[in-house]
């Protein structure tokens, strides 16, 4: 953006170069050592094992369903927060952002308190239908959605606020109902925000561990996600844990790269 190539302004000061280099090292080195230290010979054997395939499958389903849940439920919430004035809107917006900073374990405890077997809502649900949530894949998805939704809602609400309501006004003068306006104008204009939010929510869900293990447990084949499996394996067979971590790293980088090419480079 500037006309100079920077050299005419002098040498970059060490007081910025040194901390910057440290930050870069901290971010890059662990990943490099993970790549170097992974027992690549066992990579495909591990990838093919039932436990790993199960965990990968559960992670894929959970993160996929989480993104769908965020889009279906989070988009309307973001729209309400951005476009409708109602009492308590500011409070609700603040409450929606709390899970962003909440330690995942605390999120898990909160979910148990609300939806656990003897939880406030969970016990009612159990008495009425016989259904209990904890230790099921539904619980995994619930935990993932709980921690991922704020990322999605904030991103979409930001996009909705940025585009403003001027096009909504135009649509109204052209006879469009609010639903038509939402479908044909608001949503397409906020699409970059939706995609970015979905990517963030998906990434958050992929790495989710604390809330899930607290609320849904760590049962192979039903609730054991990749992060849970890695955590379990690290204690007994650290080299396998490295392989599993590598798999997760490759998958997430591959999907992020695909998203980046497709969407994130568009302004």
């Amino acid at each position, binding site marked *: 953006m500037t006309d100079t190539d920077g050299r005419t302004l002098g040498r970059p000061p060490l007081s910025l170069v040194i901390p910057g280099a440290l930050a870069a090292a901290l971010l890059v080195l662990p990943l490099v050592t993970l790549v170097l230290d992974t027992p690549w010979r066992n990579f495909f054997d591990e990838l093919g094992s039932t436990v790993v395939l199960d965990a990968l499958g559960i992670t894929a389903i959970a993160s996929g369903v989480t993104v769908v849940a965020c889009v279906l439920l989070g988009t309307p919430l973001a729209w309400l927060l951005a476009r409708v004035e109602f009492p308590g809107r500011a409070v609700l917006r603040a409450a929606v952002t709390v899970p962003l900073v909440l330690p995942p374990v605390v999120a898990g405890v909160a979910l148990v308190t609300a939806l656990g077997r003897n939880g406030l809502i969970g016990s009612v649900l159990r008495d009425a239908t016989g259904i209990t949530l904890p230790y099921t894949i539904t619980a995994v998805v619930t935990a993932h959605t709980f921690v991922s939704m704020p990322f999605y809602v904030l991103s979409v609400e930001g996009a909705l606020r940025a585009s403003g309501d001027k096009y909504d006004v135009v649509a109204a003068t052209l006879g469009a109902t609010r639903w*038509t306006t939402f479908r044909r104008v608001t949503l397409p204009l906020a699409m970059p925000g939706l995609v970015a939010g979905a990517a963030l929510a998906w990434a958050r869900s992929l790495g989710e561990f604390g809330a899930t293990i607290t609320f849904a447990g760590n049962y192979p084949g039903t609730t054991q996600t990749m992060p849970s499996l890695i955590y379990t394996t690290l204690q007994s067979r650290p080299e396998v844990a490295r392989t599993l971590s590598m798999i997760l790293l490759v998958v997430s980088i591959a999907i992020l790269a695909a998203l980046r090419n497709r969407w994130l480079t568009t302004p």
Partner: protein
Amino acid sequence: MRGLSADVRVDGRLEAELTTEPGAVVAVIGPNGAGKTTLLRALAGLVSMTGSVEVDGVSWTRPARLVRDRNVGLVFQDQLLFPHLTAVDNVAFGLRSRGVAGAEAETTARDWLTRFAVAELADRKPGQLSGGQAQRVAIARALAPAPSLLLLDEPFAGLDVGVATALRIELARHLASYDGITLLVTHDALDALTLADTVLVIDDGRVAQYGTPQNVAARPRTDHVARLVGLNVIREHDRFRSFSPSAVTVSLARPEGSARNQWHGTVLSAVTHGDAVRLLVDAGPQLIADVTPGATVELGLVPGREVWVSVKETAISTYA
């Protein structure tokens, strides 16, 4: 009763009564912040108002109608074409919202683009249109659903002079065949004189004058309109006195004759205006005076110069 009958009151900003025949084109003029855009937005239902709006015998205010049920066409200064839709989809939007089937809406939309001579741009997105092209599409979009009220908010602002002139001529042609009512907010006396059959002058949130363009231009009642049409207007009790800047005499010494039509003041600016130099003199009222370039040099008429300006009684037209 056909036509528009409105009594628009917006708290602290506007109090305007307005009655027009069907098919009328009303130019709304006045200084910035006078309430012109507020009037348009209130009629469209975009700002809350008290009073009443009645269009072709149907009340839009009792009970209050939503914006989408008002059947207005609003053209904004910055067009506000939907950026993600092509020109033809923009124009078809209002038709589809009102229940016209997709294919039929598209055919009608293409007809409208043809009428505004932008048919070949139908499949472009607004980002690929010039300002004049975008404004044509925006006007076509507003007219396509056959609104009973067409509201144009400075449709030529921000366009190149040549583009604005061409669009003005085209718009005049379309408005002649449009049987709804048009309100056109403008800063240009030319718009008022060429497009409108009625002029509504708004000043400080009130209607200052309402009449034919000829009458308003000949007998302005506000400084703003007087400047637009190039006249001086002075309010004297309940009467107005106007005179042309070419009838004004500028001198350094106090002129002879009646003190009634002479003022002492300071030159604020001097700019060329055709063959003459137009002075703006702060003499209590601000007056404009046209002098020859020779006189400008001879009398040293630069900003800051103290002068006397006077006008013959016979050159002044007085009206209520």
